[in-house]
C-alpha cells in the first residue's frame, strides 16, 4: 500500500468525518556542527477529535521533536520543517507566527516533563492561569481569577484558594504538574500535546496524573498526543499507539493490537526487552546493537541493522506504512511482501 491509499484510510479516523489533525510527510532536520541531523523522516498520521494517541519511542526516536513541530516551538534558523500539518482546517507550517499565537493556548496546548521550566518562577500559579484566560478570552481579571480557582479544583489541588497564591517552587512535583495541566487546559483546547508529563514523577503520583488526564480528556472531549518511553504509561492512556524509531512510525494502530500483538519486529523487540510481570530468572531477549546515528541514517529501514528478520532489500529504501489489520499499520517490508506477521 502506498501513501495515497494510507491517507484515504488513516488510522482510527474512519468514523470521524474529518480528522482534527492531519500530518503528512512531516520531516525535521537540524543543522549542527557535526552535520545535518535527520530527527523526523516522513511521519504520516491522522488524529480524530477526542482521540488519545500515545507515541512510544526510545531517546532519539523523534517523538518529542514531532510534538514540538506540531506546536511550532522548534528553534528557528537551524531547523527545517517540511511536509504538512493540518489542524482543524489550518495549515500550521505556512501560518505566520502571529496567527499561530492565536491558536496556541485556546486551540492547542502543551504540557512538559519538567513543570518548573514551563511555569514562570516569579509569578504565582494563580496569576499565570488568570493571565492566560484574560489574554485569550478577553474577560476581566476577577472573572479570570474565579475561573483559575475552578481549574485548580478541576485538577484536584487541595485548598485551591491558598494554592493560587503559591509560587511554583513552593509546590511539590506532583502539585506543579497539576498546576501546569490547569494552565494548559485553562482555555479548553481541542488538542493537548503531552511530552512525557509523568516521567519525572514517583509511581504513586504518576498514576494519579494519568487518571486525572484521562478524566479531563473525556470531560473536555479533547484530543491528546501523549509522548512517552514507558510501555505501561502508553498502555494506560492511549486509544491508539504509534511506535517511533529513527524518526519514523514503525507501527501505528489501536493500543491493544500494537502492544499485545505487535506486528513490527522493532515493536516486538521493544516489548520483549521491557522487563515486566514475572520474568525473573529468564534471560531477557534483547535487541542487539545501538540505535542509528541520526546524522548518518541508512537509506532504507532504520531498524534493519538490528533486525533479526532483515533481508537485503530492507536497506534499499521505500519503507512506508502499510495496512496489516483494521486501522493497524506497520512499516515492515517483509510483512508487506509476505503478507504476514512473524509473531502471529
Amino acid at each position, binding site marked *: 500500500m502506498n501513501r495515497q491509499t494510507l491517507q484515504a484510510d488513516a488510522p482510527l479516523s474512519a468514523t470521524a468525518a474529518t480528522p482534527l489533525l492531519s500530518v503528512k510527510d512531516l520531516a525535521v532536520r537540524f543543522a549542527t556542527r557535526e552535520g545535518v541531523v535527520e530527527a523526523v523522516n516522513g511521519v504520516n498520521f491522522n488524529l480524530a477529535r477526542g482521540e488519545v494517541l500515545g507515541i512510544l519511542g526510545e531517546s532519539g526516536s523523534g517523538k518529542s521533536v514531532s510534538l514540538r513541530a506540531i506546536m511550532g516551538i522548534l528553534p528557528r534558523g537551524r531547523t527545517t520543517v517540511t511536509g504538512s500539518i493540518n489542524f482543524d482546517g489550518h495549515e500550521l507550517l505556512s501560518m505566520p507566527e502571529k496567527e499561530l499565537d492565536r491558536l496556541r493556548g485556546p486551540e492547542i496546548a502543551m504540557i512538559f516533563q519538567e513543570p518548573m521550566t514551563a511555569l514562570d518562577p516569579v509569578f504565582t500559579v494563580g496569576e499565570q492561569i488568570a493571565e492566560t484566560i484574560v489574554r485569550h478570552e478577553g474577560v476581566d481579571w476577577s472573572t479570570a481569577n474565579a475561573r483559575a480557582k475552578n481549574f485548580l479544583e478541576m485538577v484536584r489541588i487541595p485548598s485551591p484558594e491558598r494554592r493560587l497564591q503559591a509560587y511554583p517552587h513552593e509546590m*511539590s512535583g506532583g502539585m506543579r504538574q497539576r498546576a501546569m495541566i490547569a494552565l494548559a487546559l485553562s482555555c479548553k483546547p481541542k488538542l493537548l500535546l503531552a511530552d512525557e508529563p509523568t516521567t519525572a514523577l514517583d509511581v504513586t503520583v504518576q498514576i494519579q496524573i494519568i487518571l486525572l488526564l484521562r478524566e479531563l480528556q473525556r470531560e473536555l472531549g479533547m484530543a491528546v498526543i501523549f509522548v512517552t518511553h514507558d510501555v505501561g504509561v502508553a498502555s494506560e492512556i492511549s486509544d491508539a499507539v504509534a511506535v517511533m524509531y529513527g524518526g519514523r512510525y514503525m507501527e501505528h494502530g489501536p493500543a491493544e493490537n500494537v502492544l*499485545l500483538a505487535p506486528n513490527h519486529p522493532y515493536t516486538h523487540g521493544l516489548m520483549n526487552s521491557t522487563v515486566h510481570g514475572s520474568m525473573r530468572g529468564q534471560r531477557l531477549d*534483547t535487541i542487539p546493537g545501538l540505535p542509528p546515528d541520526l546524522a548518518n541514517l541508512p537509506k532504507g529501514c532504520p531498524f534493519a541493522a538490528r533486525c533479526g528478520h532483515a533481508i537485503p532489500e530492507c536497506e534499499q529504501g521505500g519503507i512506508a506504512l502499510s495496512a496489516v489489520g483494521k486501522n493497524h499499520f506497520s512499516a515492515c517490508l517483509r510483512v508487506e511482501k509476505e503478507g504476514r506477521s512473524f509473531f502471529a
Partner: protein
Amino acid sequence: MTVADLRKHFPIKRNLLGRTLSAVQAVDDISFQVIKGETLGIVGESGCGKSTTARLLMRLIEPDAGVVTFDGNTVGGAHGVGVRDLYRDVQMVFQDSYASLNPRMPISMSIAYGPLSQGMNRKAAMAVAVKLLEQVGLNPVLYANRYPHELSGGQKQRVNIARALALRPRLVILDEAVSALDKSIEAQILNLLIDLKQEYDLTYVFISHDLNVIRFISDRVMVMYLGHIVEVGRVEDIYARPEHPYTKALLAAMPSMDPRKRTETAPITGDPPNPIDPPPGCRFRTRCPHAAQICEDRTPSLNDGAATGEGHLVACHMRDRRSGHPEARSSGASQ
C-alpha cells in the same frame, strides 16, 4: 554485610549556637542484612533514603549512628576496617554513567586505576582492564583507548561495571544503574549483570525506583519510605502477598501493561511528604487509609510486624495484634 541502627540526618537549619533546628531525616535507624550471594533489591520513591543508604554502605558519607559490619569486621571507627580496605571488597555503580568516569582518561585507564592504586603493577593492571572490557562486551581493540565522550550511555555504563569489578570485589552496590538507559539497552545491561554475578560469585545491592526491574533481578526486596524500612522479604512474597499498606499501594500504582486492564482508581492520593521533620510515629500514616491513633503515638518497628513466612518482615501496627490498632490481626506465623 550487616547493618544495625544506621542513621543519617542532614541538618538544613541551625540556630546561633549551631544546634540543629531541622534536618532531613534521610535514613533513620535502619537495620538489615545483605546475605552472601544474593541480590538485595531496595525500592522506594524519591526521598525514601535508598541512595543515602547506598552511600552509607560505601562510606561515601559518615553515618550519625549505627554500625556496618562486613564479613564480621566493623567498618570505620578507630578499630574498624578502613575505607581503603573496604573498597577492595565493596564497589559501587552510579546512575550517571558519564559523571562517574574521568573525562580526561581513556576508559582502559579508568578501569586499571583501582588496581594501580592498590599497588598492582601497570602491566598487570592493564591486562585486568583488557580482560574486563571483553567481559562487559566492549572489544578492547576498538575501545581500550577511547574517552568517555566517545561512548553511548549504555557503553559507558558497561565501563563503569568493568571498573567496579577491577578490584575483584565481593559486594557491588548498583544505585539506579540502569535507570537512565533506554529499555533495549537496559535489558542488555541486566543480562550482563546476571552473567557477571555468576562468573565472579558476586553479591548485589540493587537500588531502583523501577518495580519491574527490582522484581526481575532481586532475590529479596526491601521497601523504604521516608528513611524507614517498611517491609522486607523474598521477592515472590513481596510481590504476591504484600503486607504493608505502602507496599500494596506502590505495587497497585504500577501502570498496567495491558490496555484492556487499565488502572481505575489511584491506590493512594497525594505526594510523598517532605523528609524534613517527618511526622512522628509511622511515617506513612499521613497517606495510609488504615491510620489510627496508635500509628501517631508509636513508630512500628520491623519486629512488631511479626515475621510472616521466611524472613518476611513488616513494620505495621496492623500486623501486631497486641499493638492496639483497631484493624490489628494475629498472623499465622507470629510468635
